[in-house]
């Protein structure tokens, strides 16, 4: 078998979960690209955007152990911030008349626009996190949830900037499968390196035992805030991608439905594993796609409407009842070849 004793192999091995997940996604994207199926490509782009969101959720939830119900608010912040810069130059004033002069007259390229969208989301998270990250356990979860509701109801009413209850239409649809792939890999890499960094490890120690971590000198509040801000940054970027995938934005699409789907994906895959994030997205995306196709009918056979939603709900319940660590059991993909004892500890179980 291959023993990882050349420098290159050793490097591949230490990043193996990241490398294998990127390769897996590469194969999927290439296969869909070659097949030329347009509907499948749409599902794929949506799935890749969700991978960015779920990887960001993993960064915060997986490492801090605090379940956040609020990250979709950051997706919304990023999505609208991107739309202010790129959307529909000729009709922007019609949809969002309240924008300042500069934003009304200038359009940015979508890559810096998405980056700025992510930064705005991170800034919002920094401000909110100063309050919310002081709490622990269920109080912190409720705090994130309440903050999502604040953002949602504020954006819904702030119609001169967001079009409120109606939609902003006419964003350039620049999120192709390959663009989505690049962002997904960036998000996965960030999540992987963050959770293995000294900050990630400090945060994990507070997840496993908050009192002991504090006693060992971990600034729990600071580490949580850092993770919150980084993950909000990626959520914001995902929002930009999402807007440029659909070509339109409504405040209502960034609400409980999206919160539920993305959180389900993380839980189904395994909350404390990056592999779990990807596996959860793939698994639920496939289930939703198949059930949706069956809903519209294959030949004379069709299943009742909203079967896809019921299916997702039931899968989540079953996972939560019978396998709380998710499909991956909170483990990462480990090096498939013979273990090399000389280098320290194979990353079999990360969590």
């Amino acid at each position, binding site marked *: 078998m291959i023993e990882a004793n050349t420098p290159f192999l050793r490097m591949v091995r230490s990043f193996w979960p990241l490398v294998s997940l990127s390769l897996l996604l590469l194969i999927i994207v290439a296969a869909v690209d070659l097949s030329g199926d347009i509907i499948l490509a749409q599902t794929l782009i949506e799935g890749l955007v969700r991978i960015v969101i779920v990887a960001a959720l993993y960064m915060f939830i997986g490492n801090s152990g*605090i*379940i956040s*119900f609020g990250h979709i608010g950051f997706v919304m912040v990023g999505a609208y911030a991107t739309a202010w810069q790129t959307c529909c130059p000729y009709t922007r004033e019609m949809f969002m008349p309240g924008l300042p002069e500069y934003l009304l007259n200038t359009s940015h390229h979508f890559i810096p626009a998405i980056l700025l969208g992510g930064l705005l989301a991170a800034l919002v998270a920094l401000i909110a996190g100063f*309050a*919310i990250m*002081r*709490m*622990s*356990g*269920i*109080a912190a*979860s*409720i*705090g994130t949830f*309440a*903050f999502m*509701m*604040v953002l949602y*109801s*504020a954006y*819904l*009413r702030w119609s001169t900037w967001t079009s409120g209850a109606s939609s902003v239409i006419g964003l350039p649809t620049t999120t192709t499968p390959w663009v989505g792939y690049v962002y997904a890999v960036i998000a996965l890499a960030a999540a992987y390196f963050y959770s293995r960094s000294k900050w990630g490890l400090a945060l994990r120690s507070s997840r496993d035992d908050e*009192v002991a971590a504090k006693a060992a000198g971990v600034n729990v509040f600071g580490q949580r805030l850092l993770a919150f801000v980084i993950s909000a940054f990626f959520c914001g970027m995902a929002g930009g991608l999402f807007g440029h995938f659909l070509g339109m934005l409504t405040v209502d699409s960034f609400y*409980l439905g999206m919160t*539920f789907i993305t*959180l*389900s994906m993380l*839980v189904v895959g395994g909350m404390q594993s990056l592999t779990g994030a990807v596996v959860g997205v793939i698994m639920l995306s496939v289930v939703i796609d198949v059930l949706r196709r069956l809903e519209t009918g294959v030949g004379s056979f069709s299943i*009742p*409407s*909203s*079967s896809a*939603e*019921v299916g*997702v*709900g*039931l899968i*989540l*319940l079953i996972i*939560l*009842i*019978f396998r*709380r660590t998710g499909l991956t059991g909170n483990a990462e993909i480990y090096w498939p070849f013979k273990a090399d004892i000389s280098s320290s500890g194979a990353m079999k179980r990360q969590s």
Partner: protein
Amino acid sequence: MDYIIQTVISALSVGSFYALGALGIGLLFSVLRLINFAHGDFITVGGFALIVPSSAVVATVAIGGLHPAIMVVAIVAIVVALAVISYFLVFQHSQTSSPATMMIVSFALGYTLQNLIVMIYGGRPKAVNIFPSLTGQVQLSDGVSVQILQLVIIAVTWILLIALVLFLKRTRVGVQMRAAAEDFRMARMLGVNGKNVIALAFVLSGGLAGIMSILFVTQTGVLIFRMGVPIMLFFFIATVIGGMGSLVGAVVGGYSVGIVSVVLSAILPEELRGFRDACVFILVIVILLARPQGIVLTKAAKERV
């Protein structure tokens, strides 16, 4: 003056409704540490149980057409059964998870219930008219007229509250429930059957939800598969503000949220009214930070290391 009396009565009736809902959530949280996000959907199911299951555009009443007493008993029985089944099928198995995980469980249950309703009844709103006489107005004095239903809601709430207090103070199982709410482990060691107590909490919570679904449908006259979600959010805020796990707190929280929201929409200028919900949720975060145990303090609320 007349306007003030009308506002007060409407604030009290909204507050009563929220208090009942918060109580349904508080009962479960006190013994199980579960914030039941499916509570609103229990109410929805109770509402839909009034009509014949079909996706037809026009709703045909089934249970809703029976004698009022039979109808109330049947709806309450259905919702209680749903609550108990969801305990034995779902919540029982996740009892040992963290409260936040149980919150996801209840989210999943609520989401599944909503979409099962869409599957059976279709996604369109349906008009249904029960107790049409209650939606009329009644003259209290010169110039002061209020909806009869508002008075009914206040009365029903207080009857239920008194009944619940008597039950918790005077009966054996009631005392056991209060003991379990105080310290679940200790109560079990002293011979309280934990499973029975939790099942009983689900029965009570489901019973409240069943009565609320009748009140709610009488008021709105329409059935929508998502109608439980917005009211659930208010119950949730009320529970947090009052102090999670405290039943007195749930009632106080329910009335505060009801009164504050009615008063705010009465006095806020038009352009700020839209931001009312945002302000209420900011208030939730502030309360969590400044007084995490809520307005009313319970012994069980203190976090143990």
